[in-house]
């Protein structure tokens, strides 16, 4: 088992603790019974979100090198995004705007970071519970697949699992290094 496997498992356990065993198992059970591809579950329970201080620029000061501007569609992490950039909506590329909730499931892209030349796996978690932000619309489809392959599909409203499935904007979180290179670059 790799570190990320352990992390995913730990995340699932953590989530189970938060929403209570019954709720978690019933959701997981439904997914399994449905025979659907089970989606990566993030350690965020329904309606529970941490609030963090605002970082006006939307930029992450911890990132090495020149990452570029996360309010631009061309920003490297956006290689498979489809929606409004949370960086332009009062959030950042990694956090939801005030009052919105990050959904616990998402689709995945693989994008190359120009700052270190490496390929990263990106989770495009949607922020939910408020109407469309309407700013910085960005649609890039490198690696995007049709919705029968959902965890690679940016056309899906990925607010499933949030308390409201109304879509507001999309983030772009780093999961870790990717084994495959950015497709269709």
């Amino acid at each position: 088992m790799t570190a990320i496997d352990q992390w995913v498992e730990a995340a699932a356990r953590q989530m189970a603790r938060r929403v209570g065993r019954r709720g978690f198992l019933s959701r997981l059970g439904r997914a399994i019974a449905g025979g659907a591809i089970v989606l990566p579950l993030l350690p965020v329970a329904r309606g529970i979100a941490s609030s963090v201080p605002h970082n006006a620029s939307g930029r992450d000061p911890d990132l090495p090198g020149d990452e570029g501007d996360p309010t631009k569609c061309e920003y490297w992490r956006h290689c498979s995004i489809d929606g409004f950039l949370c960086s332009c909506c009062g959030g950042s590329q990694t956090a939801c705007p005030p009052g919105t909730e990050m959904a616990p499931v998402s689709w995945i892209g693989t994008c190359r970071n120009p700052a270190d030349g490496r390929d990263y796996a990106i989770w495009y978690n949607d922020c939910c519970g408020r109407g469309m932000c309407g700013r910085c619309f960005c649609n890039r489809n490198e690696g995007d697949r049709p919705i029968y392959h959902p965890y690679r599909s940016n056309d899906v409203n990925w607010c499933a699992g949030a308390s409201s499935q109304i879509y507001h904007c999309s983030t772009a979180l780093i999961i870790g290094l990717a084994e495959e290179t950015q497709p269709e670059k």
Partner: protein
Amino acid sequence: MFARCLIVALLVVATAAAEDVPPDDVGRSLTLPERTDHWVWLDEPLFRHAMLFDGDSGEVLGTVDQLGSLTGRHPHVSRQRGETYVMETFYARGHRGERRDFITIYDSRTLQVIGEVEIPPRTADVGHGLWLGAVLDDERFFVVFNQEPANSVSVVDLESRRFVGEITTAGCALVYPAGPRRFGMLCGNGTALLVELDEEGREKRQATSEPFFDVVTDPVTEKGVRDGDRWLFASFEGYLHAVDFSGDTPKPEAPWSLFTDAQRADDWRVGGLQHIALHRPTGRLFSVVHQGGKGTHKDAGSEIWVYDLKRRERIQVIEPPSLLGVFLRRITGIDPDSWSAWLLETLIPSPGAHSVVVTRDEKPLLFVRHRETGAAGVFDARSGEFLRYLEETGLGGAAMVVP
């Protein structure tokens, strides 16, 4: 105090003499005219409605609302029942609170809401809005694709107007009607699924095809078109697949290439949104194409290529008009005959088109549409002659439905 009302009237209105324009009747609402073959519904996600246009006049005939989802879930029509259906999602507090999903039933002639059927609150919400629901062939059952993210299908009996039940569909998505009691789906392992219902709309059986495409290297797009018992799907790399759903299991046919090697070397590629359309009487396939690399499968097309399905060859090329020009002209309120309008339409490069649909009759119209502006145009589908714009289609949207 009621006298004051009369005084108000007195102040502004005098007696009408016989020769004057007579007072209008109040409280009237129109019904739709007789259906023609040249109607089209256009989704508008910002206004959250779909508008019915007459392709011959370019005029709007009516509107149905569509709330609660990312983008439009376009209307579905039962000609036999004279009803139009819209899948809707409502929250108790607008964008918050308890979610409830419904099939809203409209009278197709008056566009009045005449009924609703509550369904499980998991109706799929997908940007392109296509094949998320369907009326099956004898128009008794309506099927709804659910994604929560686990996939399933809800079945509604249109005759009794009640929810029948939910069918779990292993890793398969979308609903492609294929008979009175059957529909197809596409699956994440490169297969197609056939689902058969019994007379009560309950699951009778499911059957899976052999794998016929590779989800990673060359997937087929979900934007299929129906050809009788068969469904046609184009792959990202430009191969046309067909799946026959008439038998016990779905039967994929050998794909053929929509591009020559030379065209492929020049980076010609299918893509857009509702990017293929089929006119069955003439066996013509319309395909939105552009030049671009991998990952551009949702970009607008610069051309529409017309194929003879029998001969498997391209027989015509249609160029979409500059849909951005007409959009900008309308929203800026610039006179269409003005110098500014001309400059605008000339200056702004044509953005191409994302979607095509064609009417089913013998003198078919081809509708083309641009996703980011929602702007649309109408062609004679036989000659390829541009006929007119559909003006003020809204501010966005790509899906179109011929009712």
